[in-house]
């Protein structure tokens, strides 16, 4: 938030971290956007098999309602990322949202999963992993409802190992098969409750990662957590997300060892990262390409605004390639340079002007079903669209009240941009509005946000 900017300059980075940590330690509010219609339709249906009792029209209505509710969930979370003071928790939740990527059109399930993630984002990784693995979202997305003794389905076991814990190359195909046998019987009710179906469970002996026993799903997760490789895999992914895409094995090994020894305490791992001097090294600053969500939330955090149609942010997410609750697949968003192509970059550079009401835009996404998340008809015509926003410039301008005019550009630039080399000040100055001091500041902020440098943090 802009009003905090000046405070930021007087406290040390480590003090700031302690503040963030403290703020984020409180329990997050649960999201609940599932509408009455959805509740009404689902109510009374005990088992997913009973879905057949619904008519075609009811099913269709359920899906449509889910899609609508998911849009609200998306915007609610985005708002929370923008306005919440629990920034560490929100950012960590965004990380886990990509790590435990899940794409199901069911508002109950998605809502339950994101609440689980936000709740445990800074808690214990083992518990988070267990809760997520037992969530109806993940069990349904990875087909474990179909994983039965007579017909094992390996999808769930494979992804739990490949993407959630150890990473490819650290287990055999036999481990996948045996793991899948242990997970047989794990399922869920339509209400979104985990159910263990003993009749579908294979209770024979399994040999998994060198251990043999009559394992069930919980045992498999425990064995996976016993592997130091799991700590290493998770640490490396967190390092890439928060520190640098280029990995530093020495640092990662040090962090992973402590993470493992702490029995997977996520908050401790984050303290280890943020309280290390190397985190603030020049080579680790201004090199991470912001994800579309980070970009949108960042602009809006700095420029408090009211949007007349907040849904437009869904369109932004779609155009830029990151729609919350719609990851491309179970591997999540690849991130980094994958965010950037010509059209995405030009749109990124245009967003500050669009959001600040200074420009319109023309976008007509292709008709492609579930990726459109019910946005069909949003923009069938190729016509310029205008976002009507009201920016609370007063709170932004206040930050620069005490600044001499000749220092303004440097000051604004140092706040808006995080890259080591700043953009050529003559160019920024040339395009800035000179009529009034307010205008000068406003135009410079929007200009600086419309640069390649602003894509980085």
């Amino acid at each position, binding site marked *: 938030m802009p009003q905090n900017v000046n405070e930021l300059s007087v406290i040390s980075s480590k003090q700031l971290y302690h503040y963030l940590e403290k703020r984020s330690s409180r329990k997050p509010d649960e999201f609940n956007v599932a509408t009455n219609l959805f509740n009404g339709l689902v109510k009374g249906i005990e088992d997913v098999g009973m879905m057949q009792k619904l008519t075609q029209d009811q099913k269709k209505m359920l899906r449509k309602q889910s899609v609508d509710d998911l849009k609200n969930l998306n915007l609610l979370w985005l708002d929370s990322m923008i306005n919440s003071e629990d920034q560490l928790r929100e950012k960590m939740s965004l990380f886990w949202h990509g790590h435990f990527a899940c*794409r199901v059109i069911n508002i109950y399930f998605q809502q339950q999963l994101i609440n689980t993630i936000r709740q445990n984002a800074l808690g214990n990784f083992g518990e988070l992993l267990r809760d997520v693995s037992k969530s109806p979202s993940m069990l349904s997305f990875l087909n474990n409802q179909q994983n039965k003794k007579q017909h094992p389905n390996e999808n769930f076991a*494979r992804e739990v190992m490949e993407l959630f814990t150890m990473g490819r190359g650290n287990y055999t195909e036999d481990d996948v098969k045996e793991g899948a046998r242990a997970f047989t019987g794990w399922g869920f009710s339509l209400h979104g409750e985990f159910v263990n179906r003993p009749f579908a469970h294979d209770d024979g002996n399994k040999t998994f990662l060198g251990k043999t026993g009559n394992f069930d799903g919980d045992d498999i997760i425990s064995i996976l957590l016993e592997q130091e490789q799991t700590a290493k895999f998770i640490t490396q992914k967190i390092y890439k997300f928060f520190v640098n*895409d280029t990995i530093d094995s020495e640092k990662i090994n040090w962090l992973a060892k402590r993470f493992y020894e702490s029995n997977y305490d996520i908050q401790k791992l984050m303290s280890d990262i943020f309280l290390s001097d190397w985190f603030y090294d020049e080579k680790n600053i*201004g*090199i*991470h*390409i912001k994800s579309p969500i980070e970009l949108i939330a960042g602009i809006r955090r700095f420029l408090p605004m009211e949007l007349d149609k907040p849904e437009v942010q869904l369109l932004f997410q*779609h*155009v830029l*390639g990151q729609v919350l609750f719609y990851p*491309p*697949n*179970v*591997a999540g968003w690849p991130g980094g*340079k994958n965010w*950037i*192509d*010509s*059209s*995405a*970059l*030009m749109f990124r*550079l*245009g967003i500050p*002007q669009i959001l*600040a*009401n*200074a*420009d319109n835009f*023309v*976008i*007509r*996404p*292709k*008709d*492609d*079903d579930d990726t459109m998340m019910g946005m069909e008809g949003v923009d069938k015509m190729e016509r310029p669209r205008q976002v009507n926003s*009201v*920016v*609370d*410039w*007063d709170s932004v301008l206040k930050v620069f009240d005490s600044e001499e005019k000749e220092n303004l550009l440097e000051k604004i630039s140092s706040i808006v941009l995080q*890259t080591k080399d700043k*953009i*050529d000040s003559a*160019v920024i100055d*040339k*395009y800035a*509005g000179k*009529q009034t001091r*307010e*205008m000068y500041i*406003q*135009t410079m902020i*929007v200009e600086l946000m*419309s*640069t*390649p*440098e602003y*894509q980085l943090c």
Partner: protein
Amino acid sequence: MLMFYKQKIKFNILIMLLKRKEFLQIGSLATASLFVPKFLKAFEQKSIVPPGNKILVVLQMSGGNDGLNTVIPVRNDIYYKSRPHLGIEKDKALLLTDEVGINPALPAFKQLFDEGGLSIMNGVGYPNPDRSHFRSMDIWQSASDSNKYVYTGWLGRYLDAQCDGCGKPTQALEVDDILSLALKGENNKGIAVKDPARLYNTSNEKYFREINAVHHPEEETVDYLYKMLSETLSSADYIFQQSKLHPSSQMYPATGLGKNLKTIASLIMSDINTQVYYVSIGSFDTHVNQDNQQKRLFTEMNDAVNAFINDLKNNNRFQDVLIMTFSEFGRRVAQNASGGTDHGTANSMFLISGGLQQKGLLNAMPNLADLDQGDLKYSVDFKNVYATILRQWLHADDVSILGKQYELMNFV
């Protein structure tokens, strides 16, 4: 609120200063290029695709087109039994052979077939098919196995193989506002351009050109973004200029696909170095009331493709252009209870060109007596089709692009 309102008025004055229009150098490329001498140079070498060079146009039919009502087995009892309402009668279908008909809304395709300009590949799919739109589209676009997650596309990797560091980012264009995974490579990406004039206007903002011109190399990631910006600005100029060189005089239908194919035709007739174009039509997700929806989309496709082919023929380029159609999956053999069909597996592909080596029906129709839980079993892996096009049409290294050697076919 009042305070906000006042601020808004103030900001509206500021808008005047930032408005794009004011940044535009109207109609003057020369002036704009003063800011960008470095990257326009890349194009001065005139690396033109000479006439005779091969061009691929990929037409994506999004949503899962019903292949069995597209290429129809008109003498198959199982087909009519499975589709008592949706089945297309033999006398309604446009007959290609005694056994096979094409959807009545595709007369231009029937004519192309008769002339030897259209081949049909049946039963195309992949092992362990996925019935989610998104995932299956992912698999087709990335050309990955269904249990692997690959974040580059097959045409993006074509760009990586063909033009790494060649400074010609316009080799693959998607006529759309958003770039598909298919055109994203590791190091090179195609360009999404719905309308060359609009892209030109967006990128011709003096401010972008100027920050780009004053940028000097620093940290690698910043440089990557500036390189992308440079390429976009210069490509936007280049595409716009080229699109104006030979505006197509052919009449195209005023539909989405009609407009997009017209844009592609104008670029094909120019000197642009583009070898791959990508365009989509949809949605073919016909769970309900399939007949009307498929008919509407096929009519749009028929008329647009017909105009495009005539344009190519009139300009003597039909033998140099190959159109490949695909959809992320076909639909189930049996109709559902809502006058539609649900997500299925294997599907047919159209290959259209004046330069086909093998014409007509390229293989047998799918076997409706041998189904996998009501779904067609695939007989051709789509990656064999990709490999053939990459190697024999685009003369590219199919093995490095697809990660292994797929058996090549003979249609081109």
